[in-house]
């Protein structure tokens, strides 16, 4: 990546640190959601965007991360902040057998098997009441009450960490192998890449990052239940944000998550009373348009985006 491309992110980073104290509670809340989704989309992108294993069930790791934190408190009265370690750990431990089973499948079959995994998780947490309190869910007391700022800086650090982890991985041998597997798994095998092993190497940090976001969610929202942390919509939204920003690009997921969350909040806040949850319909429309015209996302097809705003020069047949 060229040095110049760090200029804009650096400015945005400084703004992300400096501005929020001056914002109102609602805007701080929106920014917290943006940062959480940046982390989740970046985590999903490692497995789905770079390694080409599109998962429709990554909410499983989000839910496990959240419950990892919640269960510590529920059963042993341990502060859910320890869940910031236990949550991602639980997600990673679960990811290993999940990966060993689902990576036997390729392409769309893998995608659907992950959907099944996530649904299975939801049903287990819903019905195993002794373990999880089932549909009643888990409620904790918020450490900082209604203050948002400490949570904001915490989730900002999580987002930065996830970007850093993915950046380092993609600069290493692992990154080259992930992309090789995405581009052509057979060719990669022929170059000596043990593809299942390297898919696991992509899944584990991906699950860890998403699990960390889940553990944060437990601490921030102070309430979880299976329908809130394991739903299909969370998995789908991870794919949606990445598709929007650019799968297999470094900044794409972050951009996609930012646009998506801001847009959905704007629609909910201002158009909500009129259209209700119809904003999902609008997202569906946006997604269709993105897939049709920017199949590599906003970052991946940046040249096309720029071209659309540039005045077209007339073409002279046979030169000028």
């Amino acid at each position, binding site marked *: 990546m060229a040095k110049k491309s760090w200029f804009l992110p650096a400015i945005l980073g400084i703004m992300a640190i400096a501005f929020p104290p001056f914002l109102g509670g609602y805007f701080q809340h929106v920014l917290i959601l943006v940062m959480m989704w940046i982390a989740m989309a970046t985590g999903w992108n490692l497995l789905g965007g770079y390694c080409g294993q599109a998962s429709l069930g990554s909410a499983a790791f989000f839910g496990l991360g959240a419950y990892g934190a919640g269960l510590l408190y529920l059963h042993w009265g341990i502060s859910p902040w320890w869940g910031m370690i236990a949550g991602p750990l639980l997600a990673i431990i679960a990811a290993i057998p999940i990966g060993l089973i689902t990576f036997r499948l390729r392409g769309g079959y893998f995608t659907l098997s992950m959907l099944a995994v996530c649904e299975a998780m939801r049903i287990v947490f819903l019905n195993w009441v002794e373990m999880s309190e089932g549909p009643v869910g888990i409620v904790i007391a918020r450490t900082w009450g209604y203050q948002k700022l400490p949570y904001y800086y915490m989730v900002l650090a999580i987002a930065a960490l996830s970007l850093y982890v993915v950046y380092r991985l993609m600069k290493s041998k692992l990154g*080259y*192998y992930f*992309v090789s597997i995405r581009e052509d798994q057979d060719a990669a095998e022929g*170059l*000596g890449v043990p593809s299942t092993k390297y898919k696991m190497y992509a899944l584990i940090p991906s699950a860890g990052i998403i699990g960390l976001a889940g553990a944060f969610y437990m601490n921030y929202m102070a309430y979880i239940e299976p329908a809130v942390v394991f739903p299909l919509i969370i998995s789908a939204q991870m794919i949606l944000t990445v598709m929007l920003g650019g799968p297999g690009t470094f900044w794409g997921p972050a951009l996609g998550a930012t646009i998506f969350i801001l847009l959905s909040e704007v629609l909910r806040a201002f158009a909500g009373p009129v259209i209700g949850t119809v904003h999902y319909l609008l997202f569906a429309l946006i997604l269709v348009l993105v897939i049709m015209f920017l199949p590599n996302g906003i970052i991946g097809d940046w040249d096309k985006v720029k071209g659309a705003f540039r005045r077209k020069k007339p073409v002279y047949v046979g030169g000028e």
Partner: protein
Amino acid sequence: MAYLDISHVVRKFGGLVAVNDITVGLEQGEIFGLIGPNGSGKTTLFNAINNYYPANSGEIIFKGIPITRMSTHEICQLGIGRTFQVVKPLRRMTVLENVMAGAFLRTNSATKARDKALEILNFCELMPRKDVPAKDLPIADKKRMEIARSLAGDPELILLDETAAGLNLVEIEAAMTIVRKIRDSGITCFVVEHVMKFIMGISDRMMCINFGSEIARGTPREIASHPEVIKAYLGEEYAKGK
């Protein structure tokens, strides 16, 4: 025992016997050519060697190690590289990144992999193309990139599947030069080819198969004049012309 020892290998697809009891041994350092009409089982034999499609029966031994039941990436780590008849570039990666992906087989350091890749690109005369995305290369360069990618993993034996197909005369000459250079650097070459100019020009020994079975073996000159080969494949006119 030969360097690469293939004995009684059979591969069936349903009722079709694609490779029928092939036995052949390659010596270290030679260029061995394999020819045969379309669908005669050449690529299937390659696929059996590096276990894309495992052999139904028979045994393949490389450097004294049975590899018949090994997985594709293990066979590659053991030192058998290959290229594909239908090229499989890592499309959205640049030429350099493609070759680096191959070089990572022997190192974990990105710097070392880059150095190795640059050295190989130089060897294969692909330097001017190094930053081009693989999908944008013309076919001749895609094939050459596949060779480079495979060489970057330091193979001891390389399986070249139709390297010259679809190339023009100048490109064929260039490809022959590269295969000879590969052999001169000590790598054994197992070559499948349809382009006679190419395979007759570079092979030390050759084998011709048809319907999955061996029909002739010998030097290129012997193969070209073998009546079975002429009947199956080359045609009377080509034989007379020689």
